[in-house]
């Protein structure tokens, strides 16, 4: 692939190297991920993925899917967030986050204590699409470390078919255009079918 014509570089098929200037949002995500990744595997999905690759908008939250960890491991993770100056926007009752939120398919939000924005929105995988994002993730390397993000083809399909707002379609278009020639069109078609079927069933 002719990566020399574009700024975004693939180190290998599943790793992208970014040599960008860091912003407030990147720093927030990197610091939160440093805690999160000690306790669970994860994948960043939705708006921040397009922002990471230059989309000109901010976001107040960063969506993250984590594996279905145990109640005990979740409590350890939340305790570490609290010990490091974060809080949960939904509740301070760490004991019951697992039963009252995550296992009920309700996401939780973690922000710096006293703040609501920006925050990371954490959820368990709800369906095959979420599981695929976790298992098929891409790696992004930059100055602050390594992030795991959703496959770009899945991002594009999800934004076009499931989310579908103007903002989401523009995000999808942005990713398609930046990564033109580097995306797997068959994968996009596969995800389009998968997500259309999922949308019909729900």
């Amino acid at each position, binding site marked *: 692939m002719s990566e020399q014509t574009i700024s975004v570089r693939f180190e290998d098929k599943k790793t992208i190297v970014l*040599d960008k200037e860091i912003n*407030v949002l990147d720093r927030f995500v990197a610091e939160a991920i440093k805690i999160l990744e000690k306790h669970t595997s994860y994948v960043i999905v939705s708006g921040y993925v397009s*922002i990471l690759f230059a*989309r*000109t908008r*901010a976001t107040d939250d960063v969506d993250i899917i984590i594996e279905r960890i145990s109640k005990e491991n979740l409590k350890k993770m939340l305790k570490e967030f609290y010990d490091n100056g974060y809080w949960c*926007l939904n509740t301070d009752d760490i004991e019951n986050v697992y039963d009252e939120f995550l296992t009920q398919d309700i996401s939780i939000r973690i922000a710096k204590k006293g703040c609501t924005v920006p925050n990371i929105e954490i959820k368990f995988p709800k369906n095959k699409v979420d599981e695929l994002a976790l298992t098929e993730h891409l790696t992004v390397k930059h100055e602050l470390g390594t992030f795991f993000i959703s496959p770009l083809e899945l991002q594009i399909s999800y934004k076009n078919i499931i989310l579908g707002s*103007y903002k989401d379609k*523009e995000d999808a278009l942005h990713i398609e255009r930046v990564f*033109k020639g580097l995306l797997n069109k068959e994968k996009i078609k596969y995800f389009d079918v998968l997500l259309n079927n999922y949308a019909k069933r729900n």
Partner: protein
Amino acid sequence: MQKEISPQEAQELNKKQRIWFVNYWADFVRNNTDLEWSRQQNVIIDSQLKGVKQLSRELYLKIKRNKHMLS
């Protein structure tokens, strides 16, 4: 005298302009270094987040729930 356009036409024009910019900017990203595009992007992101008014947890979650219900 400027021709008046309907709200629908204005919306369509706005959409076309937005798409034009998405494509223009994506091409800029492709053809410039990460440092160059990120410096420009960060003017927007840093200013939006540094200037943000912090809402209470309750109000923020209420707004997010209502936004989800409306979409």
